[in-house]
């Protein structure tokens, strides 16, 4: 059996995964910041500081993605995660799925 250790491939895989995770954390931070801003608990200065920090992070991530040519692999990691989460939520919320699952187990 031939083993295919492609250096590029590996880089895309691992780096893509790392950056995808960083992106997700950034999104979560952004969501929190947005909630606080809309809730009115932040001063103008605080909004400016928070916005600036998030923007810098955003730019840094985009730069790394472009530099390393991993935009696609980051996207595919995130799409994959999205569809997994979709599936889990669908299973939790949809009684029809519970039935399907139960039937599958019986077989």
């Amino acid at each position, binding site marked *: *059996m*031939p*083993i295919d*250790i492609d*250096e590029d491939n*590996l*880089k895309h895989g*691992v*780096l893509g995964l*790392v950056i995808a995770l960083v992106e997700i954390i950034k999104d979560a931070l*952004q969501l929190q*910041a*947005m909630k606080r*801003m*809309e809730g009115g608990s932040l001063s*103008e200065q605080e*909004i*400016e*500081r*928070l*916005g*600036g*920090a*998030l*923007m810098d992070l*955003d730019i*840094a991530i985009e730069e*790394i993605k472009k530099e390393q040519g991993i935009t696609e692999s980051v996207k595919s990691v995130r799409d994959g995660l999205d569809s997994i989460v979709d599936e889990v939520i669908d299973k939790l919320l949809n009684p029809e799925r519970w039935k399907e699952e139960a039937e599958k187990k019986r077989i």
Partner: protein
Amino acid sequence: MKRIREIIERVVRQEIRSVLADSEDIVKEVVKTSLLPELRAATRDAISRVVEDMLKESPEIEETPPLSASITPQESARIQETELVAPPEAEISASSEVGKYLYCVAEGSERISLGKIGIEDNEVYTIPYNDLCAVVHNCPAQPYKSEDNEVVKSWIMAHQKVVDIAWEKFGTVLPLGFDTIIQGNEDTDPDENMKNWLREDYESLKEKMEKVRGKEEYGVQVFWDPKVIAHKIVQRNEEIQKLEQEMKSKPKGAAYMYKQKLEKAIKKEMEAKADHYFKDFYNQIKKHVDDLRVEKTKEIDKDKQMLINLSCLVCKDKSKELGEELEKINKMEGFSVRFTGPWPSYSFT
């Protein structure tokens, strides 16, 4: 930045090392099976050459040649071994033609051949029961499987072609999915099993046949260009315009936050619009079709989002109406429609 890079580099290096460690056994195996024999042969050649040279120079060490000869029996045994591995393949394929690959069920009571038009040029023929017949080819009892996407694609194309030809020939067909294989068992041969299946499901097959008689399937997909739609939303929505104004008046950092807020508002509005259009188009199309099924939407590209994906069962004489209705949608700004078919009724059987 620099710190992230260092961390990433370290992770990548670790990963490479662990992959190498994991595959150590495989590397050893490869070396053992493919390199070692050659290495041995090369060494033997080298030894015999040296020995010959020595013989020419000094005839007194004449007793050494047996050393090189003694290795040969082993070598020839190994060759025999490798030759023995190959043949059985032919036996398997000859003895396992015990399945029937099923393309579709059609109306007809005769056993006829459609020629060698099947998957991998197998002969396709019909197995009749009463006034129904199964369109099949003889195949091994295992499903068609391949790692190669191109191969699978060619099989599926062949499958569709056979169903199309049967559709043309018999008028009404119930197509089956790719890789439907009926096996024989110990006391019934697959031919008999096929007939049993037609007999058992006769009622429901006939019912389905009636449902799709004189009808054809069409694929309808409606797309929109998110940029055009978003632009329209911004133009029409005062609240969003207000947000945009506010954003422009803020310093850099806060503007970034406002931009996120703006994008979120547009996205929400677009989702509401998508829902609205989905219902509209669904009802519009429903008027002209016999039955329709909502399929999963797929992602095409950035400028073209699939809004609705339908399989429609349409009476043959009504397809023009449907086409005209779709043309109306196609003319709306930012929208486009893909209308494919007619196909045999894959999605309704």
